[in-house]
């Protein structure tokens, strides 16, 4: 059992995570919609590391397909990492519920549907690890992205509950809260350099934190302190800011 299952494998963070785990000797399942588009990337990892890389089709919004998806994985994975994330557009999501629902279903409902199935299996066999990539945006609602933020807040809470539940089964759950990361998702945004991480650094941090059995990881590390401050600004002050 040496496979790691990475879901949302087309994202830049997921790709960096895939390379990181392959480098450390793991085989990979890369799950995404139209997974065959990842063929060149899978070859890249195989040539670099001589690891097995299997592409598997997964639509996170097709909840009903999730059971079969997991059942069909021949070698059950040692661990699962979700890099699913849909930022959406805040203003559109305010005006158009379809967009809001897409954000919530992708970031929260879909992940819950799949993680429930995987958690059951890991709990039964009494090993494995689950990594969920949430976001610092879930730590406090802000007018610029609170629909995305609230869906990530829900995911953070779900993951902490899952961690609590699986503790006795020795299945570890890691919540990852990245700050700004230079990816396709944030392309075109004017991000402060000192607070922005490269996907490779995020991947390295996640690998180390998972190995160490950390519960929550802020990456870059400075976000732990940034968010501590932001969380502690009194609401009557916070609501007047333009953060």
């Amino acid at each position, binding site marked *: 059992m040496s496979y790691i299952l990475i879901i949302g494998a087309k994202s830049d963070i997921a790709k960096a995570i895939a390379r990181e785990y392959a480098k450390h000797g793991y085989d990979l399942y890369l799950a995404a919609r139209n997974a065959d588009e990842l063929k*060149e990337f899978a*070859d890249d990892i195989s*040539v670099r590391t001589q690891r097995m890389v299997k592409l598997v089709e997964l639509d996170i919004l097709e909840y009903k397909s999730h059971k079969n998806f997991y059942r069909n994985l021949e070698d059950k994975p040692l661990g699962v990492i979700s890099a699913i994330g849909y930022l959406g557009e805040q203003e559109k999501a305010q005006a158009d519920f379809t967009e809001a629902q897409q954000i919530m279903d992708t970031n929260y409902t879909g992940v819950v549907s799949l993680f429930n199935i995987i958690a059951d299996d890991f709990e039964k066999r009494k090993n494995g690890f689950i990594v969920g990539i949430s976001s610092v945006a879930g730590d406090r609602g802000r007018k610029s992205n609170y629909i995305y933020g609230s869906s990530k807040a829900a995911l953070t809470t779900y993951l902490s509950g899952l961690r609590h539940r699986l503790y006795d089964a020795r299945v570890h759950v890691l919540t990852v809260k990245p700050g700004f990361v230079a990816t396709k998702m944030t392309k075109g945004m004017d991000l402060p350099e000192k607070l922005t991480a490269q996907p490779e650094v995020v991947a390295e941090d996640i690998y180390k934190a998972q190995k160490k059995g950390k519960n929550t990881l802020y990456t870059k590390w400075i976000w732990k302190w940034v968010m501590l401050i932001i969380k502690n600004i009194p609401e009557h002050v916070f609501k007047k800011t333009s953060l």
Partner: protein
Amino acid sequence: MNLMSWGMYPKIKSTVFKFDKKKTLRKIINEHDKLIPYGNGRSYGDSALSSNIINVRPKDYFIDFNEETGLLHVQTGVLLLEILESFVPRGWFLKVTPGTKLITVGGAIASDIHGKNHHIEGCFSECIKEFKIMLADGEVVTCSKEATPELFRVTCGGQGLTGIILDAKIYLKKINSQYINQTTIKTKNLKETFKAFEDYKDKPYSVAWIDCLAKGDKIGKCLLMVGDFRDDGKLNYKVKKQKSISINFPSFVLNNWSVRVFNWLYYGKVKQKVSKQIVDIDTFFYPLDAIGNWNLIYGKSGFTQYQFILPKESSYEGLEEILTAISKSGKGSFLAVLKLYGKANDNYLSFPMEGYSLALDFRIEKSLFCLLDKLDEIVVKYKGRIYLAKDVRVSKETFEKGYPKIESFRQYRKENKMDSKFQSLQSKRVEI
């Protein structure tokens, strides 16, 4: 955006393009002029700077590897470091590597880089089977020495001025250890240095570190390091984490006296005339990579590397004259690297020729350019040439005198409409 080269001089604003698919790249090429490919920003001067930059570093996929032949197929933005990380543990090494592993494969081709084994293996172009390149009209050509000889000769060493290299097939060489048997020879003057190079020229790797501030009869004293791979089966290579310098050093840190002390310590550390060491790949080939951003020690104004080569028959006289001029100027150079090269190849703009090359780092300051102009005169007098991958200031006249095939290069660019499409600050300065 502000992309800089390794010398951090000049600092300019450019539009930076990235591309995912060929179609996107074709569109960029169709719609814009003055384009230049940019890899990992490790060339020192302005060869990869222009108002429109195409960043190829994100194109970093490995495509295929043949265990039988050692043929590796990678995209243009793959770093040499990534190749080593994956392949040294499997017993493979680059046939030709420069003194840093932090360059892209595309950059290695564009500068037709060379390494400590130039006298045996030649330039990077020697290990290329073929590469794909998108030309000025958007057409993609598979280029090799056999199929498209002229395109090969203009592109290898052509500083990215012929098109955008997409991927390349290169041969790796077998090794059975990540360790090198190194012999260090300490010499007292230039005469001894030259003799040591000749005595050890059968060794596959050689390079000398020269004390540029030595005066009088000590001019040209050096530590010559030669070596070859061991055969002990130890291949447990891991890329070391880089240390980094967190700030720009104030410019007074690096002065004549601190360099003098550094040189004295470095040279004085070696007691015996000939000594032997076992060192790993990173120590032997890439000593400076250990500090991620060592370019910051030269301060905010940036620095340049002056690298020239002189034909063998005039090397001794020429080097003596140049070292005397530098010593007189009192301008400290942290690093002065001397090397004996093998025969030149056919590529139009490749730097190496049979003879000695010296590379010196200088902090950018007003009075520097005057000294470098003086050195240029000596280089020209002895029929030498300047390395474009390091250069940021050479004049058209000096440059041309060193490269006899320059007119063929210019003509090829013109005929294939590359001259307005692909340009760098450097290409405009030396009019190539």
